[in-house]
């Protein structure tokens, strides 16, 4: 019985394309980065093993740490500013009866747009002379700001754009979690005389902590991946002020053909991401689950 579903040839044939592509584009590049990260390969001469030189160079380069710092800003901004805003707006939408669908559809719009279009659109808004922001500032009688070319403002401007693009996406996710909470719980609380603020903070938020945890996890992963928005809006400038690890890697690896050094940075991105994910899972995600069961 079931001979047909035991045919090893068919099994191999069905798995073959996926396994080949997966090894070629996930497993092999990962090993290649690890091996070439320890060489001085520059694309011209044969790669020579140079031990930890690349890593030493990276950790003594201020520009590398400035890039790491910018990745940290991405994470901080999303955890400290975006996540509270996401929860707040999700609660508001879940509480209104009319227009719920409209709000959901509207806030999600930027998530389907390409980062290229959003980056272009926002560099128009940030334009010093005719951009929306400076026109508003001038109408209010304030000094215009060089949003993207002032090192003090450039990173902040990118973070705002990034938040504008992705907040709605997470709102829809959290909203779905809120709407899946059984109505009876809320109704029981109303009978007990709990006001809407009380219900939100004592019932809804505790019940959606698992999804908030997922949002934070996704924000961390997204922050470590951020690169396209930086390249589109500032190319890492002015003077490297907005470089993140990925754009720093691209600058050396692809633009300046320092393959060995670029691969070492790729390894560092990989390691940093793993450490952050593991730390988050061990220190915070676990605790959240414990609270849930207690």
């Amino acid at each position, binding site marked *: 019985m079931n001979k047909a579903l035991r045919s090893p040839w068919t099994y191999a044939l069905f798995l073959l394309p*996926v396994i080949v592509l997966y090894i070629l584009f996930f497993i092999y590049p990962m090993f290649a980065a690890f091996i070439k990260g320890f060489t001085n390969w520059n694309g011209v001469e044969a790669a020579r093993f140079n031990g930890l030189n690349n890593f030493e160079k990276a950790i003594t380069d201020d520009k590398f740490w400035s890039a790491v710092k910018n990745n940290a800003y991405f994470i901080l901004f999303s955890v400290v500013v975006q996540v509270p805003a996401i929860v707040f707006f999700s609660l508001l939408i879940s509480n209104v009866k009319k227009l719920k669908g409209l709000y959901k559809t509207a806030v999600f719009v930027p998530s389907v747009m390409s980062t290229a279009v959003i980056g272009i659109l926002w560099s*128009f808004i940030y334009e010093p002379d005719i951009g929306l922001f400076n026109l508003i500032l001038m109408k209010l009688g304030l000094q215009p700001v060089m949003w993207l070319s002032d090192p003090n403002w450039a990173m902040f401007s990118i973070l705002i754009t990034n938040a504008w693009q992705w907040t709605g996406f997470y709102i829809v996710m959290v909203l779905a979690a809120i709407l899946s909470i059984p109505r009876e719980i809320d109704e029981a609380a109303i009978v007990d005389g709990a006001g809407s603020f009380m219900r939100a903070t004592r019932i809804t938020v505790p019940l959606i902590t698992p999804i908030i945890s997922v949002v934070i996890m996704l924000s961390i992963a997204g922050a470590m991946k951020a690169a396209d928005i930086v390249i589109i809006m500032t190319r890492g400038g002015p003077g490297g002020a907005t470089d993140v690890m*990925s754009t720093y890697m691209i600058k050396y690896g692809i633009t300046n053909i320092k393959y060995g050094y*670029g691969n070492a940075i790729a390894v560092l991105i990989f390691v940093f991401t793993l450490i952050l994910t593991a730390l988050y899972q061990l220190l915070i995600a676990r605790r959240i689950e414990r609270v849930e069961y207690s």
Partner: protein
Amino acid sequence: MTMTVRSVQKSISHIILLIYVIVILYPFLFVLFSSVKSDNQAIASNPFGFPSSFHFENYYEAWVNAKISVYFLNSLYIATLCSIATIVFAAMASFAITRMRFWKLSKGMYQFILIGMLIPSNALLLPIFIMLMDAGILDTHLALIIPYTAGAIPLNVIILSAFMRSIPSELEEAAVMDGLSAKGVFAKIIFPLTIPALVTVFILNFIGNWNEFLLANFFISTDELRTLPVGMVGFRDTYNTNYAQMSAGIVYSVVPVMIIYAVLQKQIIEGLTAGSIKG
């Protein structure tokens, strides 16, 4: 008394939410208005208002100068081809993993593919760049088609496997009794039953490929081969003194997505959010 407090509360909620919606949608309106204004001067003198005269020639100029049509078609065929290729391959693999009788091996395979979800994709950019260069296909469409097809595999296998596992096994047992081969079971029974999940995964892949910027920017240097996101950025860099025309360019690239979103918003929202949670 309580009713009025509640309705005031609701009104405040609506006001705050409407402000948020305006913040999200107004930039698009700003661009739409700017796209029919005569020049930078007209935008600066009346930035928020409705245009005083309509300059639709901006759209013609953008279409010609920006080669939007070329980029648009490149993006369309690459995104479609890769999305279909990934779902076909991923569906085959998911079928082998979830329905064929090699449980132990399949479990290992599934775990192996799951590792792909943990690897930060940016860390692979440079090694893949070098691999494609060695293969001599850098600066051809293959340099995007193959990595796009491969890149979506882990997530697609996870979603499709989860779906196929939920299909009752009586169906295929009956089919095997009737003399169908494994390939037949896949093509005639499991694949058709998986179509709802395939649609979700297709949308997920398509939007991802359509919007992809990093690979497209660094793996392609010939202008005629560029995809829409990279072409748009190049256009911005070349014509950044003419904001009216640039706005017309933005409208061209936003409108198709808006139309698709308007029609398929339910599937798109479900697909994208489900995809990220599973990822």
